[in-house]
């Protein structure tokens, strides 16, 4: 409320409002100030102050400070409705921010748990792998049944190892504080092709020059490895063909990895990057549904984007951005 001090001079009342503004009101016949003029003035000053509060509140919300609440008047007018709306919006956002923080904490704990579990499983799985090899070596070559069982056990062991390694890679893919260095994507691609013997399974063609950018090198290798692996694993052609293309934009490069595979049905496209999601799980024994989720995690942890373009029967293109920023 405005503070009001009255000074009477002859037939004129001078009002000193809120220690700031003077208002001169003609006096009523009985000597009192003209209340209608006074009310109109005070109302306009009050409205200005309410609008200022609303603007301040918008500023607070914009800077993600949801602790503030505006006082509403007893007029229940449009300004009160706006103030109430902003109070409610702030309250809802605050609840959601708190919920998200709790969820992030739980997710972080789960990721740590997954990493620890996968890490602890790695060692016994390696021992098991070694024992199976020894068993195979010492087996009577005529015992075909036992040989078949050992083969099956080795396949199961391989699959478990892939799963454990995938979970380990996925757990570290989401780390936000990745160290970046100057990486040549051409070198990364060559390294993956050589180490993984990609040319035994696919023809890889590059159009344009792959850029040099700031990225975590290990993570970059994982991205390229998983995308190539995905194209090879799901290929339905006699020879898998992979085309890697670079498209230079204003502030980033768009790198696309396109295959000549079966393509991905529209209904699966939205979930393709979700952990443990597989388009055709029964058909691909070596797939565990972690690779593309890991790629997305790495790309997003670097502040970049990845998306898919695909039509069934016409192959699939995975396109991701890499910033042109010249500093880590």
């Amino acid at each position, binding site marked *: 409320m405005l503070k009001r001090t009255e000074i009477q001079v002859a037939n004129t009342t001078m009002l000193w409002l809120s220690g700031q503004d003077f208002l001169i009101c003609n006096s009523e016949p009985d000597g009192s100030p003209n209340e209608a003029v006074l009310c109109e003035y005070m109302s306009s000053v009050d409205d200005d102050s309410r609008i200022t509060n609303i603007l301040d509140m918008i500023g607070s919300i914009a800077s993600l400070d949801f602790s503030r609440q505006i006082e*509403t008047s*007893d007029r*229940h*007018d*449009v300004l*009160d*409705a*706006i103030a*109430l*709306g902003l109070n*409610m*919006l702030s*309250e*809802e956002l605050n*609840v959601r921010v708190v919920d998200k923080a709790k969820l992030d904490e739980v997710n972080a704990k789960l990721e740590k748990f997954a990493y620890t579990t996968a890490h602890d499983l790695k060692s016994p799985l390696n021992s098991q792998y070694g024992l199976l090899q020894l068993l195979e070596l010492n087996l009577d070559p005529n015992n075909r049944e036992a040989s078949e069982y050992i083969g099956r056990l080795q396949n199961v062991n391989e699959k478990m190892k892939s799963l454990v390694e995938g979970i380990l890679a996925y757990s570290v893919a989401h780390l936000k504080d990745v160290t970046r260095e100057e990486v040549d994507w051409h070198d990364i691609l060559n390294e993956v092709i050589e180490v993984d013997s990609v040319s035994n399974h696919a023809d890889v063609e590059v159009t344009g020059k792959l850029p040099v950018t700031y990225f975590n090198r290990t993570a970059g290798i994982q991205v390229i490895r998983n995308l190539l692996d995905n194209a090879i694993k799901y290929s339905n052609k006699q020879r898998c063909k992979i085309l890697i293309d670079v498209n230079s934009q204003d502030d980033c490069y768009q790198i696309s990895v396109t295959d000549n595979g079966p393509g991905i049905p529209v209904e699966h496209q939205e979930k393709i990057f979700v952990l443990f999601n597989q388009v055709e799980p029964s058909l691909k024994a070596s797939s565990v549904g972690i690779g593309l989720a890991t790629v997305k995690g790495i790309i997003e942890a670097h502040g970049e984007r990845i998306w898919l373009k695909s039509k069934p029967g016409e192959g699939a293109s995975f396109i991701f951005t890499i910033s042109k920023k010249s500093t880590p």
Partner: protein
Amino acid sequence: MYRETSKIKFAIGDDNILRTECFPDTVMTLEDGQESTRISAEMVNYQPLPLLCDLTNVVKMSQACRNHFSGPEHAKTFSKCALIVTNPISRVIGNFFLGLNKPLKPTRLFTSKEEGEKWLKSGMI
């Protein structure tokens, strides 16, 4: 059947619609919301009925209260809900309720009781 609390008036008519209306300048808290649901459930004898809720006199509704009204307990008590909003404040509350709290039962805003009643009666046996 008629009941009231210090903030809300409840009435069930022959048309089997529960009508609620608040006293002027009502501030609704979670406790008020819970009490309102409890009384309503007793009045409808735990058999879901349509609700015509006039928000005109409500000047504030807490986040927890909105959450309660959009939750399972309220959805068990009412089959559908027509919210009557006749001024800027009640419109804001109603729109928040529908937009952010997403009630589990069918809920719509109306600017007149007649429209709300018409919608509530549609599909009633």
